């Protein structure tokens, strides 16, 4: 019995030493035989383009084959988290901003240190989104910005000029009031309770911030952030936006598609959705966001990252770098599903939806602000919804909700450091 115990102990010890050795190996070497990499993605519509890129990579590196693995978005991060915990995550996979630091700070991702990467051809805010402690973990794959979608018919009927880059918050509110028609059940705007398409934009435009640059403190206790939130609650209070209850029962984009809402702040990704709806395809168009104290729009995009415990560190990094190349971006652009992040390859996306002035999404790049994230973004996203709902329903003054949100968010951010 004792001897068996000892041999078990020896085996465990050896395994531990080997594991340590594996961790400390400095520069990865090329695999000798043929290599198969798995590549995790979540958008069915983009699988053909991803497969084309994988084939192009295989053509250039005949000993490496890439398997594209599709997991629908609703399950993607749950599955990835379990797989990463068990060491079974795909070698290369899609990552988004809110989850990136969670994965990077827990050592799940491999920084791109063994390959040459050039970050110059991408929007700077996107490059920064995928940096953690000074290291680049992924190259931007695509991006989206937020614009002002509007119903041209409603504008014509109310005799209001279409939105353009001269619009300010005041112009927007004035137009929203004119476009509201209670008799028809028509609202000028929709004060959607959401960060990316909603209040993050106005907080930035007011000159505030959601989370400090070091990710350690909340920006919600700043009067400027409160101003950005009030932009929306004022619309509800003035009845030019549906109530929070109505927007819970029926999503604002559905109201816009049904012609019940005249102006809708939405993403560049909505171009596909609004093309598939007959009413918006014919009547909708898009402009840049109105400006507050300054111009701003939220930019977010995905990147391709490498799993830290992949068996093929070098090959996986090379593939991740290839996914960020101009060649890969051009393959993506051809499909019209997303805006490729590589500068100069976006024209094809604009041309894919000639009925909308999509150039407006690209014109906002110079002043775009990255989607606010930290090491455990999801935790304070829940707090945002919880606290701000009270302001949106009018149950509480905005500055009160914002103050309490700042407190609970600061507590959550402090927990991240542990």
């Amino acid at each position, binding site marked *: 019995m004792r001897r068996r115990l000892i041999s078990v102990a020896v085996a465990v010890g050896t395994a531990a030493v080997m594991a340590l050795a594996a961790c400390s190996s400095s520069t990865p070497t090329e695999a000798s035989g043929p290599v198969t990499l798995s590549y995790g993605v979540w958008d069915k519509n983009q699988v053909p383009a991803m497969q084309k890129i994988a084939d192009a990579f295989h053509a250039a590196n005949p000993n490496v084959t890439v398997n594209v693995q599709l997991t629908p978005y609703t399950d993607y991060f749950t599955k990835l988290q379990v797989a990463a915990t068990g060491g079974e995550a795909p070698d290369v996979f899609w990552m988004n901003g809110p989850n990136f630091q969670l994965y990077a700070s827990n050592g799940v991702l491999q920084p791109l240190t063994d390959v040459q990467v050039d970050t110059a051809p991408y929007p700077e805010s996107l490059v920064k989104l995928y940096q953690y402690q000074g290291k680049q973990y992924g190259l931007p794959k695509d991006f989206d910005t937020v614009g002002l979608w509007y119903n041209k018919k409603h504008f014509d009927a109310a005799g209001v000029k279409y939105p353009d880059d001269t619009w300010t918050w005041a112009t927007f509110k004035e137009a929203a009031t004119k476009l509201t028609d209670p008799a028809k059940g028509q609202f000028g705007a929709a004060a959607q309770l959401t960060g990316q398409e909603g209040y993050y934009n106005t907080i930035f435009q007011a000159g505030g911030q959601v989370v400090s640059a070091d990710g350690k403190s909340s920006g919600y206790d700043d009067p400027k952030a409160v101003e950005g939130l009030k932009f929306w609650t004022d619309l509800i209070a003035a009845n030019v936006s549906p109530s929070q209850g109505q927007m819970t029962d029926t999503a604002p984009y559905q109201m816009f598609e049904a012609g019940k809402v005249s102006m809708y702040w939405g993403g560049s990704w909505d171009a596909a959705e609004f093309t598939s709806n007959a009413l918006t395809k014919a009547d909708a168009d898009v402009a840049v966001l109105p400006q507050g104290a300054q111009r701003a729009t939220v930019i977010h995009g995905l990147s391709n990252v490498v799993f830290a415990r992949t068996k093929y560190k070098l090959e996986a990094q090379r593939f991740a770098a290839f996914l960020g190349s101009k060649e890969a971006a051009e393959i993506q652009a051809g499909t019209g599903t997303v805006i490729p992040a590589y500068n100069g390859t976006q024209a094809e996306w604009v041309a894919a939806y000639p009925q909308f002035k999509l150039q407006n999404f690209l014109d906002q790049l110079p002043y775009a602000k990255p989607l606010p994230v930290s090491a455990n973004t999801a935790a304070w996203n829940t707090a945002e919804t*919880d606290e701000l709902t009270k302001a949106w329903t009018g149950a509480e003054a905005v500055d009160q909700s914002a103050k309490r949100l700042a407190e609970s968010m600061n507590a959550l951010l402090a927990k991240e450091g542990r």
Partner: protein
Amino acid sequence: MSLPAGAVAMVDEAEAAPVAVADRPTAPGRPRRKRKGRLDRHTGLWAAFFLAPTTIGLGVFYLWPVVQTIYFSFTSWGPFGGHTFIGLDNYEAIFQDPQVGVAARNTLYFAVLGLLGLPVSLVLAATLNRPGRKGVSAYRALIFLPVVTMPAAVAIVWRWLFNGDFGIINSLLGSVGISGTSWLSNPDTALLALAVVGIWSTVGYNMVILMAGLQSIPKQFYEAASLDGAGPVRQFTSITVPLLSPSLFFVSVLSVIGSLQTFDLVYVMIGKTSPALPQTRTIVYLFFEKAFIANDRGYAAALAFVLLLVISAITGLQFWLQKKWVHYA
């Protein structure tokens, strides 16, 4: 098979079929102390063999996770595994978290509302228990249908029914001059609306249990009662209800446990930006938020363990109270 008991035992012995023997370990007329020991050991082994699949299954998939959850409730979890022991910190945090109190109140309120489904099930069971009536089986099937329908599908359909602007409920109310509300996003009505759906989807199951109970009540009682001049209402209150009380007790225990664990209805019907979420967030929903959104699994494990204790306490209370109202015939 009219052999005497001794002969059966001999046959068994010859063919060494221990299971058959196990049925009669005390065959009369034979002193066999020695053999009995051997038999018992055999019996035990065979019993263990046949119980093994269930025991192992329960152990691996139920008991072990419970034990682990209890252990993890004393730890702080990393999102990718790895945990550190932090003692009672999670429990301390639970008792200081105002959200927990609110969620506990919502959950209890929901459980009480859910009990209102019992009288409904009882009336339905009594009504549909008359065999031979036309269409009875069709009605039974209809009422049982929600039980075999996926909760998520149920929730989505009810969401449409409850919609404030386009819902059928409000357009029906509108036709008689009542203006409805956004049932699911109005904080005052959301939990009631959820309870309606909860009751609707469990009434069929309760009804089946109660009908089985009804059918086990001997007919003679009713005959005697009719002879004594008791009408149907008197028969219902003096015979049906008391003799049905074991089934009612069983159904009420299950109903309370089910209500205390409500999650899916809230998740699908309320949604995270609903103004009514604070009034409808149940303990299990809070557990979900902590474990899978905020990645605070140690805290969530502690919450789950507290819920287990509360459910055990409430069920224990029900068992204690049953002495006062449940009659076992």
